[in-house]
């Protein structure tokens, strides 16, 4: 072969990334050493150096392939592999990048790291032992990280007399287990890495095996369709403005295809424009697809910054702050439910809070476990709310827009990796209020120079928040304003907060998803707290259907100031009185999440008062509340 032809062929190679995982002594390092060696990529002097070291350690004049791969001194001394190591070799058809990861349980995070970029994963099984705990773990992580191809290498067949029966039994066991996982392509190979059977060449010692050798699979497995070419997602990485005449958006196409002239929409602004050009150093191109890194210019000037995303108008990802994900925890310090972590998702860095750890997965049995804790190398299903909306797809559909990492805000460590799932609609996910929403700048509260006692004397009242909860149409708002009027006439100072006056102003833009509702109530609670702080009485009228959210509202306001009033009425009664039209909408399916119709309402267990509103009038209800406020010493103030 002429050198020109050789170079031409080598320029046109494809790239395949694969990860390996195996338990201790499965022979993983031996297999990799064998692949590197047999594909004639172990350089002679490396081989010589290794021969020298192996001799010192074991005094046997045999090449220990593992010494080629276990890079760090500490690992060589302990004889284990503690981190992900990357290896390279190539054949005339493909260049290979191996993410070589350790096998034992405590290195789940390394396995996940290796699998995150892999097209294919090799799970090694020692034929003597069959399927172990760790085998299941590897297969589960392969499936979790969405690696499309899995090769199960049944190693050490030489020790088992190359028995077809042994191989078939392991294959059957594995297939039974893997049925529960989502791996589209699984292949089995009987192998001896030590001797070289079915690694590069097909072995004559196992004529019953009709499949390909490992290297043949690696060279031939079809990977072109592994990329998502349908859903165009272009996360803006960097805005390039070298001079006034050029404004381009740099990025790597995450999925789909973007063409010159395409009409595109920018997220989150939803502004629309057209692709003017796709610029590269080597000239403009008509079309870009993953994993190309390009610079896009648009026909009109739109304000776009890093973290925004260009998409096609008819194919938009989910845009939401609220999402659910499977999470692999990677740090010694376990998950802290009250911490506000950084999330890096595509090119966006923002913060989030944890709404709920729904369950933990026992990787060995694939069973769900109830737990409030998630520690190193554990996997759990978590509901999050980010401080700004993310543009995401489920990881199943799109690895590039479904994966994220969490970063600890104090240590700066990468503490977790997540894969977004969308099995439940966003508005059905649980949410919560937290006092730990991250502030943009460090702040402390100043003490007022007016003392609480001075306020009591001025107003002749104690601050309190009367919280009216009940179904839509129960008459909460009517009661609230009637109460305000009576209090005012009696000389009290009070403020009404209700769904309308809050959502039309302060909370404009918040949606009716569970995350939106939680944020809505959090702000209401904060306003009530401030207003109470000024010595005023606050009357709140909100459906607030979830007991857990009302509890959190009470915590923000202060339990001694929070007065819970349950406006009790049946859904049927409310529907008859309803003027908002919400019941009709909910019944026709146009509205989700209406408490009492298609969402639940948690009636208060121990309210301060229950108002059986179907039986009493609004004025009577107000009188009941006023009596209670007098009994509690709120108004008139009992003493000062």
């Amino acid at each position, binding site marked *: 072969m002429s*050198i020109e032809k*050789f*170079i031409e062929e*080598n*320029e*046109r*190679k494809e*790239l395949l990334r694969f990860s390996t995982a195996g338990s201790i002594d499965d022979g993983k390092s031996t297999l990799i050493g064998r692949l590197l060696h047999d594909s*004639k990529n*172990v*350089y*002679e*002097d*490396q081989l010589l150096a290794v021969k020298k*070291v192996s001799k010192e350690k074991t005094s046997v004049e045999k090449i220990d392939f593992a010494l080629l791969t276990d*890079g*760090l*001194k*500490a690992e060589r001394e302990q004889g284990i592999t503690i*981190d992900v*190591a990357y*290896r*390279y070799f*190539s054949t005339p058809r*493909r260049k290979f990048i191996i993410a070589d990861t350790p096998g034992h349980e405590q290195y789940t995070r390394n396995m996940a*790291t290796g699998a*995150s*970029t892999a097209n294919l994963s090799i799970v090694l099984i020692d034929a003597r032992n069959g399927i172990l705990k760790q085998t299941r773990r590897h297969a589960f992580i392969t499936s979790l990280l969405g690696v499309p191809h899995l090769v199960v290498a049944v190693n050490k067949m030489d020790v088992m007399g190359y028995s077809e029966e042994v191989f078939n039994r392991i294959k059957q066991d594995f297939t039974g287990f893997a049925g529960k996982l989502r791996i589209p392509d699984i292949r089995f190979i009987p192998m001896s890495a030590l001797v070289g059977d079915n690694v590069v060449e097909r072995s004559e010692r196992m004529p019953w095996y009709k499949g390909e050798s490992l290297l043949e699979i690696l060279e031939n497995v079809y990977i*072109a369709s592994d990329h998502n070419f349908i859903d165009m997602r272009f996360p803006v*990485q*960097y805005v*390039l*403005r*070298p*001079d006034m005449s*050029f404004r381009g958006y*740099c*990025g790597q196409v995450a999925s789909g295809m973007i063409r010159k002239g395409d009409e595109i929409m920018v997220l989150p602004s939803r502004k629309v424009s057209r692709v003017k050009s796709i*610029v*590269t150093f*080597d000239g403009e191109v008509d079309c870009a*697809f993953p*994993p*190309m*890194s390009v*610079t896009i210019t648009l026909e009109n000037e739109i304000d776009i910054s*890093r973290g925004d995303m260009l998409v096609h108008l008819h194919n938009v990802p989910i845009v939401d702050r609220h999402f659910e994900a499977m999470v692999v925890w*990677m740090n010694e310090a376990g998950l802290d439910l009250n911490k506000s972590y*950084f999330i*890096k*998702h595509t*090119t966006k860095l923002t913060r989030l809070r944890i709404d709920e750890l729904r369950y933990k997965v026992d990787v060995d049995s694939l069973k769900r476990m109830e737990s409030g804790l998630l520690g190193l190398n554990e996997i759990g299903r978590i509901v999050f709310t980010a401080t700004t909306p993310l543009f995401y797809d489920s990881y199943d559909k799109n690895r*590039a827009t479904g*994966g994220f*990492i969490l*970063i600890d805000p104090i240590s*700066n*460590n*990468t503490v977790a*990796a997540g894969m977004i799932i969308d099995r439940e609609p966003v508005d059905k996910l649980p949410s919560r209020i937290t006092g730990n929403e991250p502030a943009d700048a460090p702040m402390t509260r100043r003490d007022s120079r007016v003392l609480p006692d001075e306020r009591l004397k001025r107003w002749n009242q104690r601050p309190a928040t009367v919280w009216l909860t009940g179904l839509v149409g129960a008459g909460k708002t009517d009661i609230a304003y009637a109460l305000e009027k009576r209090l005012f006439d009696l000389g009290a100072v009070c403020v009404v907060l209700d769904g309308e006056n809050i959502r039309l102003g302060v909370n404009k833009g918040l949606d009716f998803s569970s995350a939106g509702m939680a944020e809505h109530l959090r702000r209401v609670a904060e306003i009530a707290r401030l207003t109470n702080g000024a010595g005023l009485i606050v009357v709140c009228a909100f459906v607030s259907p979830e007991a857990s959210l009302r509890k959190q509202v009470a915590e923000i306001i202060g339990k001694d100031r929070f007065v819970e009033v349950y406006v009790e009425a049946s859904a049927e009664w409310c529907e008859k009185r309803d003027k908002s039209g919400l019941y009709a909408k909910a019944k026709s399916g146009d509205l989700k999440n209406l408490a009492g119709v298609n969402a639940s309402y948690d009636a208060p267990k121990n309210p301060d008062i229950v108002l059986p509103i179907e039986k009493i009038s609004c004025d009577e209800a107000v009188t009941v509340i006023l009596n209670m406020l007098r009994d509690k010493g709120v108004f008139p103030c009992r003493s000062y």
Partner: protein
Amino acid sequence: MDNRGYSITHLRQLEAESIFVMREVLAEFERPVMLYSVGKDSSVMVHLARKAFHPGKIPFPLLHVDTGYKFSEMYKFRDKFVKSIGADLIVYKHEQSGKVNPFDYGTQKCCAILKTQALLEAIKAGKYDAAFGGARREEEKSRAKERIFSFRDEFGQWDPRNQRPELWNLYNARVNKGESIRVFPLSNWTELDVWLYIHVEKIPVVPMYFAKEQDMVVRDEQLIPLDGPVPLKKGEKPERVMCRFRTLGCYPCTGAVHSVAKTVPEIIEEMMTVRISERSTRVIDHDVEGSMETKKKEGYF
């Protein structure tokens, strides 16, 4: 290098990944700098930086930590190359440069001061929070475990047992004041990839990579060039040898290899037939077993 259907060749994939990494650094750090060592990997890295920010110029300075012992041809090439692409070059020399030398101090000490210490000082002096290096994982065993975004503490040290997990293409760029990240955009390139890319992209490299007849001292099976005042041992005398350099370092410590490869295709051909790994001609890597790992922990690239 045309694309077949909607897939791109391995070189274009490597290129796209390196460009992505560079843009990520520019977007997330305040003061990035690119270490420039004049060698072939540096040439490729700088070329990729031009691509990443085209039609703009490279938006960060190049930093050459100069031991003062580089080959004269390297200095010539450096000045010409940097000028031709319009990049900013900062040259940093340790104050001991010119006093410390490998002949009296030994290679380890000399390297520790003129390279590792000088680099740490240069990064501190420039207040750089990210420094690109052209190191590749394939080069050496301990480099195989290096992250693309490799965290360094305030003393510039690498802790191999406590590295941040690196998944997908989501790089963690968060550091506290004084800490920094070394970034290796060529992590996944092999020596063959580098030469193929130099060939395809016609990237200029120092002519010393190409074979010619030159004066050499043969010592411990290494060909030591006589570019500067190398003290000769007893019985040693220069010989005319047809040879070339596979890697370029300081003249007292960089050996040449016998070769007749005078062009990039000939180098590629030679590489596929002569299988001696490239760093074997660097004297320092062979001092003690695991010496690269030790140096990296201290802050070396």
